[in-house]
């Protein structure tokens, strides 16, 4: 029982270790991270609009999303995607400044753009 589990898990490890290395998978992984943080920012924006979260938390989390996305962007080699992520960064900065200035109405526009970018990212990942 023990040895069976041991060998199978070891085998699994070796198999997956080989699989992880491919650059395509790496790209997908990075895109997932970016998408995850962009989606976080979107959810923060929505929740803030509905008055469901404190201002400070919203700003901190947006700043964190921007930082994480900026870090992940360095790993992206595809220029088309890189441009898109630059766009994403701008939108996030816009949302953050709207929250800072308490522009309840102004936030709808960048939030809408963010939703679109997120859909595109999602499509890219699922490709």
């Amino acid at each position: 029982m023990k040895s069976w589990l041991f060998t199978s898990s070891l085998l699994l490890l070796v198999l997956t270790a080989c699989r992880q290395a491919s650059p395509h998978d790496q790209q997908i992984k990075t895109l997932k991270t970016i998408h995850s943080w962009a989606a976080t920012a979107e959810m923060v924006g929505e929740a803030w609009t509905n008055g469901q979260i404190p201002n400070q938390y919203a700003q901190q989390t947006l700043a964190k999303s921007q930082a994480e996305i900026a870090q992940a962007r360095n790993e992206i080699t595809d220029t088309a995607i890189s441009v898109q992520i630059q766009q994403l960064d701008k939108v996030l900065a816009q949302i953050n400044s709207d929250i800072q200035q308490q522009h309840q109405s102004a936030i709808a526009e960048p939030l809408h753009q963010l939703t679109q970018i997120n859909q595109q990212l999602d499509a890219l990942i699922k490709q």
Partner: protein
Amino acid sequence: MSKLLEIALGIITSIGGFLDVGAIATAAEAGSSFKFQLIWAILLGTVCVIFLVEMSGRLAAVSKHSLASAMRERFGFNFYILPLVAEIIVDFLILGAEIGGVCIALQLVTGISFQWWALPVAFTVWLLLWKGNFSIIENGVSFLGLVTLGFVVATFKLRPDLPSLGSGAIPTLPQQDITHYLFIAVSILGALISPYLFYFYSSGAIEDKWDESHLNINRAVAGLGMGFGSVVSLGVLIVAALVLNPRGIQVDSYEQAALILTQTFGYWGFILFAASLGIVCFGAALEVNLDTAYIVAQAFGWNWGENLHPQEAARFSSVYTIFVFLAALLMVFGIDPLQLTLFSMALTAVILPVVITPFLVLMNDQEYVGNYRNGWISNSVIIFTIALAFVLAIVAIPLEILGG
């Protein structure tokens, strides 16, 4: 009637004992990344923990010796030094992570960075241990842990699809991210089968002066209490799967997990998450810190007990005083709390074999448990758990490197 009350109280407190920063973080990460696919890991961990907690309590009630003392006496100090040192290291990291959990909760609500909260939180933990007694620690704080039932309420409000929940109860491998999946599975098991719980629970049974007449209470508390704790963990997983996963949010940070209740409860959902995280981690920080003092004092035969005045157990109280502030430094230096949590859970998995294997011997030794030795069911579960512990110990670090 008073027995029933004692059972009810025991169940409530063990919900608090079961849940900690690791249980919440791993469940949120599992649900957000793999939907319901890791439900089996929580169920498996719960079964193991129920049996091990029951045994720790039975050992203490019958032999009047805590698990740590019994291990030292039965196997000698030269063996016991291994689990002792391993457990102190793991406790140190986990205590840092629990303090981090409280700090993050405070950061969510106040906006003041978690690093600033580390020392005030450590001081509060220390003050409660210094001034309080065991029943305050056990009952007072864990009673507050009932706020975590918010996750269960949210689960019902979100109406998860039952067949797909059920399919998560059977282990299957995902299409992609297999290493990450296995890493989280190991972390969940490491978070649930946490050694400090067994040491703490058996020392607690001695603080509460348990004897053979408490064996039924022990069984009920272990089974139902841990069971309820597990239901809350499942609640976290399911809510994360229903709220975060469809949006593509994978929990890499507590800020992301903080959003899981806002969809259901609005602003109060945010507060409820922060309160749950803060209270659960605070309770666990008390337990982990106390646990370290227990195992060190018991290793050397010092006088120990949270019900004693600090000066009656000077070395014991010195240990928890120094330890909590040292662990808080991890947060002062700004180590990411979630990463620290996941790392400590993986490390817990590494030390499991040396902690769990002695159960098999102790729970069958007539000198210790007399006529209350393990039956074949308990022995089968413990043998299975030992095998599982060895597998986890071997795969934990490679998985941490590859998929963490």
